[in-house]
């Protein structure tokens, strides 16, 4: 731990105000970053964390406030300025170019050169080496878009690490990573800390906060609530400070075992459902009112399974049986007609329709199911939107605000609501709590389990194993695009599940 009170901060931000049309995103926000420290920024969805980061890296210009780097006031006018000043950033949504190769995404703007030309060989070599440090072994000459979100996230991190910087900022880098990757990232961060770098880190995982950080700044409603040494702040106190109420926040796991579904009727079953090169034949059954968890490592094929079930991709072979009838879905419409909903893991590309309002985004799936002509009356749309905004605690200025201006977590909630509004019989949730704050996550899972108890089936995919263990009635484990095991509640615990998904302990 390098932090000491006598040190001067590398970066000091004070009194930042930032106003968006209709929203006051930051009012008197601030932050102090010390060299050789990992500093975690915490706060509820929409508290202003990402906005603060964008202000101090030149994406937004604040109305008021000062940013002091190494004792000198700075006013970065663009991200380029910030990079030159030595601030390297990974933003919340992956901000890379999908059309460029992985290697290029890492090196763009700082190419290795030979004779004044870009040295592609050296670039690929260096990129591969850099990713190897993060234990990622992929073909770096392929376009970024051919890789799943998690890999893209790691590439973004790789890019930031490669910029020789004084300050490294990571906005929710772990939201799409699983345990292994997180640990890897942490070990890299620790070594950077040793070298005296100042690191700002945003996460909604309390575990991770306590695992890595030295200091915590809590934000609430666009203000700095306070700065604390990690060692001096208990988890409960932290949550209370984020929420701004001295009430007792439910600790994780409190409502575990919410459902206990009758193992009777099968809602849906797959018969050797497969797609070449993507998923080996899978047999899966989901019962009515059951919450089925799908566990596995990155790339184990969970998302693929979900997509086939939803008709987002077409299966090459096998069938889906619903109510005794064999079906094959070739478009999502087919699945929706059977009462299936699917909340995708990639909210930016597959979920949010950014320039449409919260209301429009929210009723979209319901309207699509009702058909073109039977428009949902405006009154009803507003009722629905208002209902879910309140139910899920979506922080938005109004239901007519474009969803693109909402904070990441709140967008996720709107998309969840989009499917809840269709009252599906089976809801497929692929990483539904990605980027959602502790409190809200708890509430959302409670809400979902309640629905489950009322008879909705849920297929739950999450990289957070404890969460999967806690809420699932049954867990199917996948590895290398195969189903490799099935466990009932209680058969697995935090440690045995790791063995199972890593491939020790099942055939």
């Amino acid at each position, binding site marked *: 731990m390098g932090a000491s009170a006598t040190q001067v901060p590398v970066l000091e931000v004070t009194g930042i105000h930032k106003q968006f*049309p*209709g*929203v006051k995103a930051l009012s008197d926000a601030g932050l102090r970053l010390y060299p050789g420290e990992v500093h975690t920024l915490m706060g509820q969805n929409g508290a202003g964390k990402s906005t603060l980061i964008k202000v101090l890296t030149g994406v937004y210009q604040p109305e008021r406030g000062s940013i002091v780097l190494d004792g000198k006031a700075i006013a970065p006018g663009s991200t380029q300025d910030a990079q030159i000043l030595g601030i390297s950033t990974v933003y919340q949504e992956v901000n890379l170019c999908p059309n460029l190769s992985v290697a290029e995404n890492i090196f763009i703007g700082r190419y290795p050169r030979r004779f004044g030309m870009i040295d592609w060989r050296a670039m690929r070599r260096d990129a591969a080496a850099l990713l190897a440090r993060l234990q990622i072994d992929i073909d770096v000459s392929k376009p970024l878009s051919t890789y799943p979100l998690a890999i893209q996230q790691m590439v973004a991190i790789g890019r930031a690490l490669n910029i020789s910087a004084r300050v490294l900022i990571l906005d929710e880098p772990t939201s799409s990573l699983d345990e292994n990757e997180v640990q890897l990232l942490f070990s890299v961060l620790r070594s950077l800390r040793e070298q005296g770098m100042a690191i700002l880190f945003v996460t909604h995982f309390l575990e991770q906060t306590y695992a890595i950080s030295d200091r915590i700044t809590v934000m609430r409603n666009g203000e700095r609530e306070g700065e604390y040494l990690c060692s001096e702040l208990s988890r409960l106190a932290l949550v209370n400070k984020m*929420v701004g*109420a001295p009430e007792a926040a439910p600790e994780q796991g409190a409502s575990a075992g919410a459902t206990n579904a009758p193992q009777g009727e099968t809602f849906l079953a797959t018969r050797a459902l497969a797609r070449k090169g993507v998923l080996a034949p899978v047999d899966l059954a989901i019962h009515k009112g059951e919450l089925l968890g799908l566990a596995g490592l990155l790339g184990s094929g969970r998302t693929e399974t979900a997509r086939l079930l*939803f008709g*987002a991709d077409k299966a090459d072979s096998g069938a889906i049986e619903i109510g005794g009838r064999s079906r094959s879905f070739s*478009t*999502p*419409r087919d699945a*929706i007609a059977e009462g299936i909903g*699917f909340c*995708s893991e990639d909210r930016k*590309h*597959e*979920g*949010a*329709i*950014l*320039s*449409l309002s919260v209301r*429009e985004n929210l009723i*979209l*799936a319901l*309207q*699509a*199911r*009702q*058909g*073109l*002509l*039977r*428009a*949902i009356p405006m009154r009803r749309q*507003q009722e629905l*939107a*208002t209902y879910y*905004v*309140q*139910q*899920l*605690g*979506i*922080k*938005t*200025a*109004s*239901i*007519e*605000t474009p969803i693109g201006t909402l904070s990441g977590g709140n967008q996720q909630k709107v998309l969840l609501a*989009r499917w809840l509004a269709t009252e599906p019989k089976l809801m497929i949730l692929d990483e539904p709590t990605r980027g959602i704050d502790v*409190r*809200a996550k708890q*509430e959302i899972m409670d809400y979902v389990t309640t629905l489950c108890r009322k008879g909705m089936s849920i297929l739950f995919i999450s990289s957070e194993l404890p969460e999967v263990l806690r809420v699932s009635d049954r867990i199917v484990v996948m590895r290398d695009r195969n189903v490799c095991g099935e466990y009932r509640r209680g058969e697995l615990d935090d440690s045995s599940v790791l063995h199972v998904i890593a491939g020790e302990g099942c055939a």
Partner: protein
Amino acid sequence: MNVPLNPAALTSAQPASPSLFQHPLFRPLAALAVLLLIDFALIPGFFKLEIRDGHLYGGLVDIVNRAAPLMLAAIGMTLVIATRGIDISVGAVVALSGTVASMLIGGTMVMNNGVPEYVAQTPMALAILAALGAALLCGLWNGFLVAGLGLQPIVATLILMVAGRGLAQLLTDGQIVTVYYQPFFFLGSGYLFGLPFALFVVVAVFAVTSFLMRHTALGLFIQAVGVNPVAARLAGIRTAALIVFVYVFSAACAGMAGLMISSNVKSADANNAGLLLELDAILAVTLGGTLLAGGKFSLVGSIIGALIIQTLTYTIYSLGVPPEVNMVVKSVVVFLICISQSDQLKTLWKRRAA
């Protein structure tokens, strides 16, 4: 849950300050108003309207009348653009539908003892249906290429843009087909209640379209497909059918515009009818505030855009601008209107002032 919210506040459509200046239609309207003001100042009797032969007569009537085909094309184009597409075959469809109608109605002049006599052919209703049918086929074709084969809209419609006029000329053997059948002229130059009939057609098409947009989910779906087609598909929208629909709709609008144009000049000129109409239509849509990147669109905006263009053309003619200067004047005005509509201008202005 924990965020206390006032439902009433949520439903209030716009986040406070619904000021007039912020309305998306304010700037197109302002541009139109400025143009009209200039006309008022420079062209004597510009706003003069009189009743002649039982109908309104004057510069404004001309503008509306002449802008009618453009407004129709712009309405269709708006929907295509909202899905992030573009339709550059509009002019060709205009030529094709005008030709079909004129050929079917046709009528030739026969000299009978030195007295000209006119002979009509197919019943007009049938001819009009056939022309619209041809336009619909064109739309289906475009839609199929874009949605079915996944061609890029600009190339997909380029094919018809090139070949469509060829087809029309093939039908007429390269001749201008003159129509001698009186009732057909009503569409393009007739008057109803003292107003140009074309105006009623535009109003009707506009009303039907806005009704569809407001009272069905069409508008929502079109926007969703335009902004994020992947997400729209996952939400259960039939994206392909929707895309085919907008191209068919655009072609139908173009077909009507074609009928109007050929009815107005009482003939069909396959080579020149509707030449470059697609560019004007796109220009109208953009001047009306719709983004070519798809998503939010404004039908009223497109109508205003079309009126801006026609007013500008009319102004150039009326002011006696020499023809070689036409283009420079037009381009400078378009530049000025675009820049004045930019949000950025305000920001830059403020920054300068500060």
